């Protein structure tokens, strides 16, 4: 199993949390995993990206045009990070507009769940639902239960489930 995934968004949207969830899920399934993240000043509302590499890689960074999947919490980031995805790759986009990608209006659904902050979980659920990611919904739910802060757990699970059962 080798998969290269990027998560693109804006500081504060929970890109790092999704990165951790995917990394823990990979380890839980016995895969080696490496991730790369944006920290520091760039996180203050700026554009951020995380890389997740599942399988026997040595480098934590994904080259341009080499990612299998892209999870975009901010649709406009396609302009900045879209070229990480290889031609045969798949895009999961938080957007209410259709395009050359798989999309879900994660922000609106998250607000319906009670918190805009779980739009990251909605998008993750939607991507897992597609079935081609390295991990399934059962493992991911377990990981969400394990690493969520207790006060966020219910909202996180609700958001994930909403994305998972979309349409």
């Amino acid at each position, binding site marked *: 199993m080798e998969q290269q995934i990027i998560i693109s968004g804006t500081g504060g949207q929970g890109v790092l949390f999704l990165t951790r969830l995917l990394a823990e899920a990979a*380890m839980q399934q016995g895969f*080696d995993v490496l991730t790369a993240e944006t*920290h520091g000043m760039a996180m203050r*509302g700026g554009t951020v990206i995380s890389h997740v590499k599942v399988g026997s*890689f040595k480098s934590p960074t994904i080259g341009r*045009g080499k990612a299998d999947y892209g999870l975009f919490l901010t649709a406009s980031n396609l302009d900045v990070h879209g*070229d990480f995805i290889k031609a045969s790759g798949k895009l999961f986009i938080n957007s209410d507009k259709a395009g050359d990608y798989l999309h879900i209006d994660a922000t609106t659904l998250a607000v319906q769940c009670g918190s805009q902050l779980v739009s990251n979980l909605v998008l993750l659920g939607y991507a897992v639902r597609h079935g081609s990611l390295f991990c399934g919904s059962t493992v991911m739910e377990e990981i969400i239960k394990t690493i969520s802060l207790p006060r966020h757990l219910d909202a996180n699970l609700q958001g994930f489930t909403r994305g998972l059962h979309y349409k």
Partner: protein
Amino acid sequence: MFTAFFMKIQEKGHIMIKKEQRILMGNEAIGRGICESGCFLAASYPGTPASEILASVVEFSKETATGMHIEWSVNEKVAYEIALASSYTGKRSAVAMKQVGLNVASDPFMRSAYIGVKGGLVLVVADDPGPHSSQTEQDSRSFAQFARVPVFDPASPREAKEMVPRAFALSEKYEIPVMLRPTTAVCHARQNVVCEVPRVLDRKAHFEKNPGRWVATPNFLTNLHRLLNEKMDVIADEEDFFPSIVAGDGSRKGECIIASGVAYAHTYDLLEHLGLLGKVNLYKVDMPYPLNCRFIETINDRYNRVLVIEETYPVIETQFLNRHIQGRNSGLVPNEGELTPDVIETVLQTFLDLTAEERPTSTGGKGRRPTLCPGCPHRAAFYAIRDTFPEGIFPSDIGCYTLGMNLGAVDTCHCMGAGISQAAGFYHAYAADSDDFPTVVATIGDSTFFHAGIPPLINAVFTKARIIVVILDNSTTAMTGNQPTPQVGLLADGTPGNQVLIPDLVGAAGVRFLRECDPYHVDEFIGHLKEADRYCRSESGGVAVIIAKHPCLMGKGKEKPAQKYRVTVTEECVGCKKCLTHFECPALVFDEETKRVNIDPYTCNGCTVCLAVCPVGAIVAEEKEVE
């Protein structure tokens, strides 16, 4: 923090060993390595990309019954000196910082190479090629070479952890400080890492007096220098540090690639992707300085085409004294910027004579620039400063508040503490020309003030500078993850220390004008600024200090307080955009259709400061009903 893990079964001979694995960030892996090495003391000052190292030492040290001494020191120089003395007593000690932190700690660092250590001393210096979050992309391996100290260059979190005990052992064997130099890509990578049990060494502090060594007046230093040089020669001959090889199949005779750090990891993955792993000899350097002397001979004797890939300066490359090596000196590897896989791919294609693979074309989007958080108290302070002194000069400093440049209220940012000295420098330059000098307002955060702001404040008072210093006191070190300051009074492990108060320090520095104010109260704050300016220009005037005090909204573990106000924009808005350019709150959004500003209710935190910004009073707030 580190809750999820599982048991991986590794096969070792016939014995099945169960090892616990955890997902660790590079910095956490280093913290883990420090705890697994029986280290007794760890000191640090936060700075991206090194900030998480000390916090993880706090976390992991809880797994043993013996307490370590773990501290956020006021700056890197102090941190280094604390760890150094602790090592004199025979106890293993560690100190962690970012690369520019070593500039601050360079004084004790340079001399410690001569004087040496007793208990192992490991200095973790996190470099930031790129740079992503720093004022330079300097290579600390060059600093190690300058000081004549061995340095390890890890390629991954796993390796960073494994190198910590190796560094301690080497440090004790030769009684010399040893540097571990991760880069941002390693510090902020996460990886599944096998964890050992944290160790406690049975050592009691014992400082053996030896003035010839620990005091080492100039008389002793030539000899100490000679001993240092001899140590380095022996270390360069240690078999353990002969680089490992992924051997080629002989099809590319006379050619090899040498890499270290995360650049090795990128190179390895790229060669695999290109189908060239196992075709060309690939060497991995763990210790870039001193480079193994037999390795230097091997490379110079056996190869006629050599490519060296390393970050960020040609440290390995230059030790070969071989003009034919391709790398930074030959211009094949770019001499600036991070060596991302994309950059290395192009280098490999040239060196190995490959045709370039097609990459998706970039649409060239730049993304959104970082900005102060909605409701950030710094924004209010910056707005007031710029609005009060439109012709002022605004030196600033290192922290979240550097983003005040977006509001036109930060004119310089140089290094920790420079804002106050630069303010005095500006004043003296202008004051020499005429009595009508511009108002100079320096801004500095509370943590930066403790770090390097006090000596320049004393200096400014002493030299009769007429400047305003605004200390942006948000009761935390915000940019790096909310580490406590001496004024907050909490130690690294969360227990109370002895509080040191900023107003006391300001008074002790000889400042005769001091006001404190919550910058959310914009009118009051502007009143203090105007009064401060009058004081500066008065006959007996000098340095005026205003402490802008309001806690950071991003404090760790803090549940955000319920918003008291709903802020909206009325039809009175004339679309002048003053709130966008002078206040730059992410919650303020210009609607191109109505040509009016709207407030994004999800982003707005209800601080209501923008009400004071709007020149026509179109921004209004109503009290929310308590849910």
